[in-house]
């Protein structure tokens, strides 16, 4: 049976994602990112399970994750996705969407972009519940029922679909490069064609 390694990290982790490896390399990914939630100070961290240094077995078992670096994060990390090999995007409970860059040489994380009120209510914060990436495009959804499209290289939002949903949108995913699928808290799937300018979904499916 495969070994199962358990490591205690003193924080509640909400998401873990493998860092994508280049297509040419045939190896399994060795680095992964985690986001924490429900802490006073949340953070985004990068871990490695490879044997980096020649420390042998002193640092624990083979496959024991070692933390490489971390960066503080405002609010709970509700979703975390890799944009490409070095950049990852986080969705925060404060409604912010942040792009981080991981520098493998110096083992540091820096903030590339920060959209503080990607999702909000008129006088309050609205958590950004999920996001999906297809570099350089990022689509985020939140409790405010809004769908927002960003581009990693642009300052402002590319497109905002207001009131896409009357209840909270819980998740989003790409069906095709131009179509996204969202699901809300009353169990409806909505298909959106981003090529069209309308604010209503092209299809609604409910259970």
């Amino acid at each position, binding site marked *: 049976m495969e070994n199962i390694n358990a490591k*205690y990290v*003193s*924080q*509640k982790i909400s998401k873990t994602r493998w860092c994508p490896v280049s297509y040419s390399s045939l190896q399994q990914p060795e680095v992964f990112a985690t986001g924490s939630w*429900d*802490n*006073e100070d949340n953070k985004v961290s990068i871990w490695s399970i490879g044997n980096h240094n020649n420390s042998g077995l002193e640092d624990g078992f083979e496959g024991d994750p070692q933390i490489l670096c971390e960066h503080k994060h405002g*609010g*709970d990390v*509700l979703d975390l996705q890799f944009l490409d090999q070095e950049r990852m995007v986080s969705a925060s*409970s404060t409604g912010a969407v942040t792009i981080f860059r991981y520098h493998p040489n110096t083992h540091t994380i820096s903030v590339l972009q920060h959209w503080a009120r990607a999702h909000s*209510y*008129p*006088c*309050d914060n*609205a*958590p950004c*519940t999920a996001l999906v990436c297809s570099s350089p495009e990022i689509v985020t959804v939140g*409790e*405010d*029922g809004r769908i927002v499209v960003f581009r990693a290289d642009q300052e402002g939002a590319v497109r905002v679909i207001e*009131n896409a*949903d*009357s*209840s*909270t949108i*819980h998740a989003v995913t790409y069906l095709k490069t131009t179509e996204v699928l969202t699901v809300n*808290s*009353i169990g*409806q799937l*909505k298909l959106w064609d981003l090529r069209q300018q309308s604010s209503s979904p092209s299809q*609604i499916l*409910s259970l």
Partner: protein
Amino acid sequence: AIHLQEPEGKHMGFAWGQGNIFVYETLFKATGSGSPFIHEVRKDEDIYSPILRKLFNESHHIFVGLQTIREDLPSKNKKPQFVSISKNYRSVIRACMEELHISLNPTVSILLAIELIWNLCEVLFIDAAPAGSLLLHLLDWVRLHKADVDEKARDVLQSDSPAEHRDYWDVVVSYVLQGRLDEARQMLGKKATLTPAANNIFKMMDNLLSKMPFYNPGGTQTLTEFDVKWRHWHEEVDRCLQDNSFASNQHLEVLCKILLGDEDTLLEHKDLLGTWYHFLVSRLLFCHPTVKPTELHYYAQVNYSTKTLSAPEPLDSILLAAFEFDIHQVIKDCSIALNNWWFVAHLTDLLDHCKLLQSHNLHFGSNLREFLLLEYASGLFTHHSLWQLAVDYFDHCLEFGRVYLELQIERVPLDTERKALKVLRICEQRQMSEQVRSICKIMAMRALRNNRLGSALSWSIRAKDAAFATLISERFLQDYCAKGTFSDLDLIDNLGPAMLLSDRLTFLGKYREFHKLYGEKRFKEAAKLLLSLMTAKIAPRSFWMTLLTDALPLLEQKEVIFSADQTYELMFCLEELTSSLNTPSSDSDKSMQEEDVELTKVELLRLALSRNLAMAIVKEGTVET
């Protein structure tokens, strides 16, 4: 502890804050000078330490496992399980200590003390070793908590000439004091090779050391047989001393006296012993290895009171209470000495499972175990993240756990829907319906405040809160009247059976259905629905005018949609409505224009209805040929 400077005439005042107390000096007089400081006192500071968090989480895991041990096995079969659980707890403490060591944290010493006490409790109470094994366990206990011997030994062995290292004899004596005779012999061997002239006496000492009997609990030898053997050996050592065999080497003579358990010699080495309980165990090892558990407290008292090597500390009284097998005293002293309930809660729970605690009920209804667990869990609940652990602890407090949980769970801050859903799941699993309603209402109110009507409605449906659903439906209807179209159609169209939660909600759903039927040109069905909304009294009276106005286009169609009977019913509704409108009432500030509009509408309706009635009568009276 907070100390008042110059306490004469001064008092301490306090005020409750949020989760803390503010304490200040006061003279209770209008004027006068005093200390300008206010102290903030908080409890449960420890739970915010990131490394101790590991302790709380892993011990939670062990705790839950302990609660689910099958009750039907007799207690004595469960002893090895309890011992193993006790060791699990201790290993978690040790793991935390190791991590804290690295960060040079002062909490390490507290954890060391905790582990020391727990280990002793495990030996005396849980394992309940009988005479013979008891001493062996105590020896292990002492060895485990005196790590400096190994460090020193390592230094000595790694030096160029171990036998001439200045700590050499200290290491040998320490080994003997801890009963580690094989290692002592190995060390002695190094000196022996250096001084071949004294070969004889070194050989003699080696012989004595090798022959010291140790009780083997798993063996066939009984305790009495062991005792006899041990006395023989003891006499032999005594003979060697009386014969002055070791007179030529002062160190070996000291060793010999130690082997005889000579009190004065042992006292001379109090630096190596370090603590009174080490002294106690070493004494017992060399004087009375067959000590019975019931005899322990006598030896402990004697050894402690006359040989305190340092000022008495809380730890000493706790250990003494343990040696006296006074479990309640141990728990009581630990509760006072430690600033966190973790230790006493978990230890008491384990002891309770071993059926070692007399179940005398405390004045406030629950027993000791439950009281401590409730205190611990309540402390956990104030933590922004560890509250989830506390839920399991409350679950296993049978008397008051549920009540505590009900009170506390509503106070968890709900920043995101995801967290609210987690809390809800906890409540739903335990059938805490009132809390479910309360949490859903909080979320619904928040959604309503942010104008997320769909979200608010779905929360009130989840809570089965009819009143709130009515409120939200009213908002939807108001929006419709104001804008002429529905917002959030996706929600209303898919209400399903949830529609029946409140009348207003049902009306909303059905009204929307009417619009859909109309849009699909299914006029007959639409008409029927519209009428039923009024006759079945689903629609609120205030909305009837709108409904009747909606009926107009249906009445104006070329084809007859409403049958004669249906038209009569519509007329009846209109008359009912107008009669109530005509009564002199409220809206006296209605402008003349509005009243005109109203009258015109009514006229139009009457006309349309009459025309429809005519057409319907004709149609129904016609015989198809």
